[in-house]
């Protein structure tokens, strides 16, 4: 009965911890390993213009990324001294509008967006309506009709229609109709714009979009036209220059449609520049943003929302349960005896500063000298509490002396002896001396060494980088540790060292 309750409870804890963990890992993209990095790109738009000699009202609009297939916006900000700004949704995507009542002389507006790759981010538009047939006037209409008819003849579906059309548009000399429609222009933007018109005549929804290629570093990024075609089901992407289907790997869509990138009212001599810079950041940052974006409450309860110093404290604290688990296993499953239940965990924490070898040496040194002093004090017949206080004082003095002497000798490692838990050392000395007197030196040394071994194992486990990272990013894993502890609490099998202890009883039964 008891056993079955504990299993259910442990299972529930594992399920809660596990599902939170999987959601944060798979769903929100929290990193599983400590040295993972997420690429982010900072795109900065510098918008310069001259507002003229006299102070005049100025109004400027600029398209900014809205729907960006393959990318998600981590952060964006607008730097515009003195200007009021609003963002709004327009036909081509999003737009920022800057306005000021009085401005003169050269002005600079900045827009900065930080984006990261997110394959989940698709162009989740609604399906567009069928376009109305364009009316261009003769002779363009006839040329259009003929081109549509020819291309339709050699294609099967919107995708192949587009590819065939782009192929014809690329070769303006061959076809008279194409030459007429392009009017002698060959740059990809015009080709894409013409393609949209032809596709509209063929009743295929299409739109021109502009974006930039995100590279490692670029002071002057160029806007790249791209063609978006809807096949009745989803959007397909085509390179208007080559006719190849698909989006380039790092193509960030900026805006769609035929509208200009910016409009300017009240200023002149405009100059606009795109700069791109790639960075590597902690994926946790991105995951937190994503959690906020999907309105998950999880990011609110994350340790990353705490001040940095507090975070550092928790990075250590969250490892203590793991140390405790190690102690439980070593005591109840292996059967090592230690001084004080969790003394090894605290000593292991001190090892963080000294490292194991130096820590063990310092610990043994302080305890040995402390014991010598304790035995000397036995002759003085002190009452218990004053005696403990005296040992404590001696321990502090010993640590100071060790630090000073080792510093004189140029050994810096012993400086960190100060981080040893003095009270724990004092209690260890006291208990060790009692065991020494009552049960003999063998048992005392055995328990002392046992404590040190357990502390060293605790330290080793608590210092595993992957575990440190996992428990900090996914504190819900502590529920698993709790579940394991609960189950170990009902472990009634033999301890490993009991196999040695009861060796005499391990004869084959008759």
């Amino acid at each position: 009965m008891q056993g079955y309750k504990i299993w259910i409870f442990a299972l529930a804890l594992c399920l809660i911890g596990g599902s939170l963990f999987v959601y944060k890992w798979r769903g929100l993209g929290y990193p599983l390993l400590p040295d993972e990095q997420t690429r982010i790109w900072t795109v900065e738009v510098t918008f310069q213009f001259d507002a003229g000699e006299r102070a005049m009202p100025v109004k400027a609009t600029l398209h900014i990324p809205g729907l960006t297939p393959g990318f998600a916006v981590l952060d964006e900000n607008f730097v515009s001294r003195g200007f009021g700004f609003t963002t709004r949704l327009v036909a081509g995507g999003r737009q920022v509008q800057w306005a000021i009542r009085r401005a003169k002389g050269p002005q600079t507006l900045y827009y900065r967006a930080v984006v990261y790759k997110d394959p989940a981010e698709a162009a989740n538009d609604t399906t567009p309506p069928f376009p109305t047939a364009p009316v261009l006037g003769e002779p363009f209409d006839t040329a259009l009709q003929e081109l549509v008819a020819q291309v339709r003849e050699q294609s099967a579906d919107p995708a192949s229609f587009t590819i065939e059309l782009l192929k014809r548009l690329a070769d303006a000399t061959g076809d008279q109709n194409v030459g007429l429609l392009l009017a002698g222009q060959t740059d990809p933007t015009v080709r894409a714009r013409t393609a949209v018109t032809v596709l509209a005549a063929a009743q295929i929804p299409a739109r021109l979009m502009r974006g930039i290629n995100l590279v490692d570093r670029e002071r002057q990024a160029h806007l790249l036209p791209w063609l978006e075609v809807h096949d009745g089901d989803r959007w397909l992407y085509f390179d208007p220059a080559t006719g190849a289907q698909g989006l380039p790997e790092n193509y960030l869509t900026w805006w769609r449609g035929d509208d200009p990138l910016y409009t300017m009212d009240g200023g002149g001599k405009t100059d606009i520049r795109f700069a791109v810079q790639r960075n590597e950041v902690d994926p946790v940052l991105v995951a937190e943003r994503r959690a906020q974006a999907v309105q998950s409450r999880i990011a609110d309860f994350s340790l990353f929302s705490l001040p940095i110093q507090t975070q550092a404290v928790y990075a250590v604290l969250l490892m203590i349960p793991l140390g405790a688990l190690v102690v439980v296993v070593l005591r109840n499953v292996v059967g090592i005896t230690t001084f004080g239940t969790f003394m090894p965990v605290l000593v292991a924490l001190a090892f963080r500063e000294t490292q194991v070898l130096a820590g063990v040496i310092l610990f043994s040194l302080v305890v040995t000298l402390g014991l010598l002093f304790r035995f000397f004090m036995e002759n003085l017949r002190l009452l218990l509490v004053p005696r403990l206080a005296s040992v404590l004082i001696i321990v502090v003095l010993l640590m100071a002396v060790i630090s000073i002497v080792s510093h004189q000798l140029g050994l810096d490692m012993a400086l960190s002896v100060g981080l040893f838990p003095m009270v724990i050392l004092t209690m260890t000395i006291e208990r060790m001396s009692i065991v020494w007197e009552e049960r003999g030196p063998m048992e005392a040394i055995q328990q002392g060494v046992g404590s040190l071994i357990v502390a060293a194992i605790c330290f080793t486990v608590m210092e595993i980088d992957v575990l440190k990272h996992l428990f900090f990013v996914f504190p819900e894993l502590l529920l698993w540790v709790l579940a394991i502890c609960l189950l170990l609490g009902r472990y009634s099998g033999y301890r490993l060292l009991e196999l040695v202890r009861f060796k005499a009883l391990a004869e084959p039964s008759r």
Partner: protein
Amino acid sequence: MLGSIGRLAGNGVVGLNERNCQYIMRYNPRRLYPLVDDKLATKRLAMAAGLPVPELYGVIGSHHEVRNLPTILAAHRDFVVKPAHGSGGDGILVVSARVRDRNVYRLVDGSIMGEDDIEHHLSNIISGQYSLGGHRDVALVEYCVKFDATFAEHSFRGVPDIRVIVFRGYPVMGMVRLPTRRSQGKANLHQGAVGAGLDLATGQTTYGVTGNTTVTEHPDTGAPIGGLQIPQWEYLLRFAARCYELTGLGYLGVDIVLDRDKGPMLLELNARPGLNIQIANRRGLRPRLDLVEAQPAGAPIEERVAFAMTTLATAVPALN
């Protein structure tokens, strides 16, 4: 290793985890612990029930009462000082003789202690040096049990005691603990005393254990461990079984001493008795515990002792 686990389990050897999990936690309600953890409470309980215990000379409960020691001891030559909450025999001082005018005490192991040494020891006990968790404690000063001739050949200086595990009121296993030079006259196995298993049916010693290894001879006297008859065996078993009604603890270690003049006396009770008794008896405890678990509750003492001496004693043979 797996084979070793299998053989231990096959022989019914109970490990610490199993003892704690299956027996102590199930049969020993925590609220009853103070009855056995406090030796003063145990003594009063036993006296009220008419069980013989070593006479209490006095209790020293505070540092200033330490000065009363000479008054308490005025009429006695030998005595024992022990912490009321001590465990595992720690902090027990057995004084075998006192030189009256010089205020010097001779301990059972032959060493000499001055008045101030004893007082220091008392104040250590009171400060809680030997109690679990370092709580304040009181020191008991009591009658020093006189050596019974039965054990003349089997004991080095101290007084042997008989440990019986009583499960749900049934005595399930017994051993006699014989002090050695190494244990400095104390009867605790982990201090170096020899434990000798007892045949539940007859009260004769069988095999010996010191630490975790088996022995056949007393290490100091050379006397063979086996074949020693414990006197009044059936009476002792009834004595032990009564302690179940006394405390209500289902899994209990009863320590009894045999006094030359006053007969068997209850020394102390233990709610977490050790497991080395299995090595001394070359038997696992579990087959017997299982048999007792199958018995209905509420049987009278005579019936329980008879069950122990017949059914339990013969249920499982010892290993070789």
